[in-house]
């Protein structure tokens, strides 16, 4: 009778991940160029160009280092955030509405929860690529010490996932992409500018600072900067990591609900 037993897909989330890899094999060229070019351009313009002005005005450095060295790890965490936010908005809309690839998946033995985990595994992979390229550029600019700064890569991945999980949960509830603009304009862009990437959060008005502490990017920047500068101590690191993991956990729980509601109803 074994021959007639229906075969249930093993490791369904891995199959979802495979789908993303297969698509990326067609589209990676442009994204590799931008993930390399973006840190090179930002570090030379803001780190070197603007940095000359900042350093001349602050002989003691920012947090004790040159502006380039201060800025680079912050940008690393920010670019993880931006990559994650992008990968968790438009591609989700495509899977649910535009191309309905997720709908196609759940007509096979793959369940919505596997779509959630496969998607997150894919975002983590993308984040690893982006963060590694970014760190490579930082080494080339002399903005981080090899090899101790390598720990910044998993920190960046964690930062990105802390955005990806909640945002994809939200994206799965949307019918079209109009609200994504709001996420980027009122969420991602202000975080990019105010969460300690370009200047220490202590520069903000005192009443805004607690708000910054609540955002995942603040903790991501703190971890990434601590790793690059070698100033991280274990207890603070654990607190930052804990906050990020909390965001990821809540995001996954919400995604499991919203993906199921959207795909099986």
């Amino acid at each position: 009778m074994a021959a007639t037993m229906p075969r249930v897909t093993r490791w369904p989330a891995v199959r979802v991940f495979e789908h993303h890899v297969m698509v990326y094999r067609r589209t990676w060229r442009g994204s590799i160029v931008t993930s390399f070019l973006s840190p090179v351009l930002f570090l030379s313009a803001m780190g070197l160009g603007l940095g000359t002005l900042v350093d001349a005005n602050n002989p003691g450095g920012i947090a004790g280092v040159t502006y380039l060295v201060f800025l680079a790890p912050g940008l690393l965490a920010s670019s993880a955030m931006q990559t994650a936010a992008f990968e968790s908005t438009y591609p989700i809309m495509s899977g649910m509405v535009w191309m309905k690839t997720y709908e196609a998946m759940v007509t096979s033995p793959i369940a919505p929860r596997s779509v959630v985990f496969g998607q997150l595994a894919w975002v983590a992979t993308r984040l690893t690529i982006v963060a590694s390229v970014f760190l490579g550029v930082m080494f080339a600019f002399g903005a981080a010490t090899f090899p101790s700064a390598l720990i910044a890569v998993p920190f960046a991945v964690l930062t990105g996932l802390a955005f990806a999980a909640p945002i994809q949960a939200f994206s799965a509830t949307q019918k079209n992409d109009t609200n994504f603009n709001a996420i980027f304009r009122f969420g991602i862009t202000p975080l990019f500018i105010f969460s300690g990437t370009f200047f220490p959060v202590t520069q903000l008005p005192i009443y805004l600072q607690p708000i910054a502490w609540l955002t995942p990017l603040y903790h991501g920047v703190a971890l990434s900067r601590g790793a690059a500068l070698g100033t991280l101590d274990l207890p603070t690191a654990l607190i930052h990591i804990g906050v990020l993991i909390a965001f990821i956990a809540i995001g996954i729980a919400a995604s499991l609900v919203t993906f199921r509601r959207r795909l099986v109803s």
Partner: protein
Amino acid sequence: MLLRLFPIIPFGSRRAGRLVERNVWVYRHGWLIIFSGFFEPLFYLLGIGFGLGKLVGSVNGLTYAQFVAPALLATAAMNGAIYDSTFNMFFKLKFAKTYDAVLSTPLGVGDIAVGEVAWALIRGTLYSLGFMVVIFMLGLALSPWALLAVPAAMLIGFAAAAIGTSCTTFIRKWQDFDMVFVVTLPLFLFSATFFPITAYPDAIRILVEFTPLYRGVHLIRGLTTGQIEPMLLVDCLYLIVLGLIGLAIVSRRLKFLLLK
């Protein structure tokens, strides 16, 4: 002679306004998107101009916010026009087939080209007006000439929309938009936006001086800081010529794409 080079200007006259009407209708549903576009340069002004500005100190005798505000206006004008004329237009061209529907009415290709560029311009002007109000309120405008910064930003928007639209007509798939990013990001970062052009070695400085956004930043910064000089007219001329070249390419390419 000029009419022969740019035949669409008399061609796409009154009817082009209908396409603008269409976009107004569409955006009545998504007014929040338009409204939100105003905040992006504002965040940059507060964060970079004032927050980071404390670390930078003064630049060429200006506070950093005074220095960076006109550049942010110029880049906002460019980015807004580019976004509308690339992503949005590509969607209408390839997926929504909006223009195929338009072309089965008395409207022609020239009307589409002029209408879309005009719409991008109107949107950009709204943003520029809003941003200029903020600049005046924060005391970052040092001269009454700053009032002219709005029409100057319109020129930047016109050039960017025309060039953006003409690039869109060459785009085949979404991934090609990485190229838009590859062009606009360096313009954004290196057009004397965040630091003065004197920071560059001579060879690079001359190169930057030939780029469109630098001309735009130079023009608006001249107006808001009251450093009026003949070079500002060259800036205007540069942007106008660029825009007209873009328009000519657009109408030719659209004819090729839509009237097969």
